[in-house]
């Protein structure tokens, strides 16, 4: 008992979201990735919990060349700091069982195949240290420490962004920020699962979000594209069922964080329709049009236009937001053009902070950055509602029919750099997690 307290383990708090067990035990020693895969494939309980009837899928061969077969916590009982569920033997990241000062927060992402669920979860779990397009970036006061293992894989394997062949993965990370710690536990679900056994999926999500104390986030990863590819899955239906059930079970105990991570905004193209719409609807629109025409990978010459927009407490930006919100008849081309403009505005924010060499964290919390980011997110939400109206109305489900319901859209994208594709504003999820956890205190 004393030992359990020492390690911050409370039986009441432990729950495996995959099988529902409240018991766990510590492991002893390590085995290689390949040995573990073979051993797990022989455990029917583990396979059933992970929804993997056929066995334990390997990583793609190209990635294997880089990662090899790393050491993983074994299936033997012992006294190490790694713990497994006593029933299904799944490896539980500490964020699933540890109690203590950290504020717990559960996050589940849903979404269609290929929309980037694992990719964007990774930006929360293991944010790139050198991203040039972050909002606050990371330093010694503000870091994210991931749990190394995402059984049967590791975080370093998932950083290679391969198609996740395992239906369910448990991940964990701890966000260190100036005001405290946040223990984030996440459940990653393979996209194909939303087309088949959605009841099984819903049960696990529910168990994950409600299994322990602390708040829960149910996020949808939605990819911007001209042709909606959501139809093949039951994301909207699953989401509706889940949010209703969870709301009932929460009984006002906590709120459910609902949101869309809207990815691939970089694929939206600026166009003439959007330009004439801006002429018509926003005054003055000169700076916005200049930015819209600008090249995403060369924002430098547009710094003056950006400064113009930031004057008067982002007055032009607020005019744009009002125009988008007020015009219910925006056509798809106009919407796409303004999405392209939004993405450039996001890039300019990051470029501005980098050029001015100011502390990103200070700039966000005390230099007007937070206000700018919030306006962009609100603009993204309005644009999303326009875009989504033709695709089955997920936004209507998110609002639950209530216009004032709390949900948000986090706009993201990628930009090709000489080194790699860099994520733009990927740390939004971390900022939101800190903000949500603080509210739950």
């Amino acid at each position: 008992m004393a030992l359990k307290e020492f390690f911050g383990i409370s039986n009441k708090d432990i729950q495996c979201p995959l099988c529902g067990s409240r018991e766990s035990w510590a492991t002893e020693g390590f085995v290689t990735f390949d040995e573990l895969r073979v051993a797990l494939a022989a455990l029917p309980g583990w396979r059933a919990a992970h929804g993997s009837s056929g066995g334990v899928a390997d990583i793609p061969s190209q990635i294997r060349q880089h990662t090899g077969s790393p050491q993983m916590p074994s299936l033997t009982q012992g006294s190490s700091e790694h713990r497994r569920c006593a029933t299904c033997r799944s490896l539980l990241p500490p964020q699933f069982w540890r109690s203590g000062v950290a504020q717990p927060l559960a996050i589940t992402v849903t979404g269609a195949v290929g929309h980037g669920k694992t990719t964007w979860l990774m930006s929360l779990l293991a944010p790139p240290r050198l991203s040039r397009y972050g909002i606050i970036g990371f330093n010694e006061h503000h870091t994210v420490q991931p749990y190394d293992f995402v059984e049967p894989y590791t975080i370093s394997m998932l950083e290679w962004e391969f198609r996740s062949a395992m239906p369910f993965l448990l991940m964990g990370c701890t966000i260190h920020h100036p005001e405290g710690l946040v223990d984030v536990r996440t459940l990653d679900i393979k996209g194909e699962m939303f087309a088949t056994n959605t009841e099984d999926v819903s049960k696990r999500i529910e168990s994950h979000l409600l299994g322990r104390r602390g708040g829960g986030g149910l996020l949808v990863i939605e990819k911007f594209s001209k042709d909606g590819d959501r139809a093949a899955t039951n994301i909207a239906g699953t989401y509706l069922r889940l949010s209703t059930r969870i709301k009932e079970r929460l009984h006002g105990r906590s709120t459910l964080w609902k949101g869309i991570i809207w990815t691939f905004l970089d694929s939206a193209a600026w166009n003439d329709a959007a330009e004439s719409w801006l002429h018509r609807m926003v005054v003055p629109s000169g700076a916005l049009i200049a930015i819209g025409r600008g090249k995403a990978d060369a924002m430098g010459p547009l710094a003056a236009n950006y400064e113009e927009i930031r004057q008067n407490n982002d007055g032009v930006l607020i005019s744009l937001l009002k125009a988008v919100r007020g015009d219910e008849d925006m056509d798809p081309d106009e919407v796409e053009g303004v999405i392209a403009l939004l993405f450039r505005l996001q890039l300019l924010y990051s470029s501005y902070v980098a050029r001015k060499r100011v502390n990103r964290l200070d700039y966000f919390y005390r230099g007007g950055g937070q206000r700018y980011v919030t306006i962009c997110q609100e603009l993204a939400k309005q644009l999303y509602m326009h875009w989504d109206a033709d695709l089955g109305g997920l936004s209507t489900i998110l609002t639950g029919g209530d216009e004032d319901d709390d949900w948000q859209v986090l706009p993201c994208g990628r930009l090709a750099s000489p080194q790699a594709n860099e994520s733009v504003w990927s740390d939004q999820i971390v900022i939101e997690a800190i903000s949500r956890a603080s509210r739950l205190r």
Partner: protein
Amino acid sequence: MRKKYEALHVTYVQHQGQVPTFGGSPEIANALESLGTGMEVSSPWERGGPIVWRPLNERRFVGWMQGIQTSVFGRQGAWECRGLLVDDDVDISAWPWLLKKMRQSNTEGSLDELGQLLLKRQGEVAPDQASELATVLTALYRQRRAGDSSPMTIPMDIPMHTTALLPWVWLLGPFDPQQAYLGPPRRTLAATSPALVYHPTIGAPFTPAIQLPSFMDSLKKQMTLESAIQLGKYFRDPKTKWWGSPQVAELPQRQVPLSREDAPADKEEKARAYDGVSRYTKLLAPLRAKRHWLRVLPWALVIFLLLYITQLLRPIGPIRDDITDIRNTVHSASSPLRKTAAAKSALGLSGQATPTATESAITTSSVTANPTQPALDIIRETITRGVPGVTFSDQMKKMAKGKPNVSDSARLHIAALQTVFFKRNWTTDPKIDGIAGNGFFAAMKNRGSADDLVRLLTDDQYLLVELQKR
């Protein structure tokens, strides 16, 4: 009436993921992930290979599986699989004979045709046969016999093994084909449930080359499906102690009797085994005979030429020269590791080791593991380093650096002979290509009266010494 089989095609579809395009269910596609994810997608292994498995503990699946290159869908880890889900009472033995059709069928119609042929056991053509087949089979039978529970690995180092090794192992291996699950070729073991019996593993090491029972020579393209099935049954018959007998362990050092008269009369067990072998290979006798002649023909020609040229009608007996001096010379020219290896006389060109009086006293692990290694290694090293005055072709250099198979080993030996011939001015062409062409034979004819020609051809240690002389 319900069909005894169902065509299945699973592939990656944009916006839908890894799903069946016809047949099966999404659950089956999910179950197959453990086999498909992690398959090679780059050349030369991108073609994939056959699989026999039971997804979801339901019907067996027999088909073809391959990875999909990242560039096709922009996703790493996608794969494609096509084939038939068949009822348990269907005999699927014929699939090795339908391999080509199985690889090419990806429509419901073509898979249906495949199913019809499978039901009727109408094979099209026997699969090719890799020269490593018998080695692999022997290793697997030994593993089974020893009760070793580690996965049964089918080593593969060239893509040809996919079609020339896997079907044969499935058919002739130590497990009943109707119960044996065969995975597709991968670099890593697939972790599946139900577990695979055979894991074709790219880059896994082959066991040391062994001397094989002569009936293995009978496995030819023209072999019928029925005789292959019979042969497989014979191999697996627990009464047959051929593979599991203590003599098997000594096969690398012994010549298996080629006729009944040669079989040790004092060992009834061996004789019984031979009886079984001859009974089952009777059908294949003509082919076997052809095979035997093909193998012996080149060396028969060489020996005939030698006898003709040198007018030596005496038999080629044991070499009586004092080998100690030669050995010392070789030792002084080799690395410490090679010294122990070279201490044992290696196989000659005829594939027979020349025993010596001192040899039995020197036993090293490398020599016992693979008696063909030492001489060949030194030849390879010499070719890699180069020999003043001669030019080794690029192919020879590549062969010397790589892992030589049986035919490569023969060419390396010939290259060594060509080099010595050139050094002795028997030939004028400094380009060494390892091919025993007209020039090679002409050199022997012209200079064949030299006393040591026979020795050069039969004693590898002597050849090495001559090769390394300045």
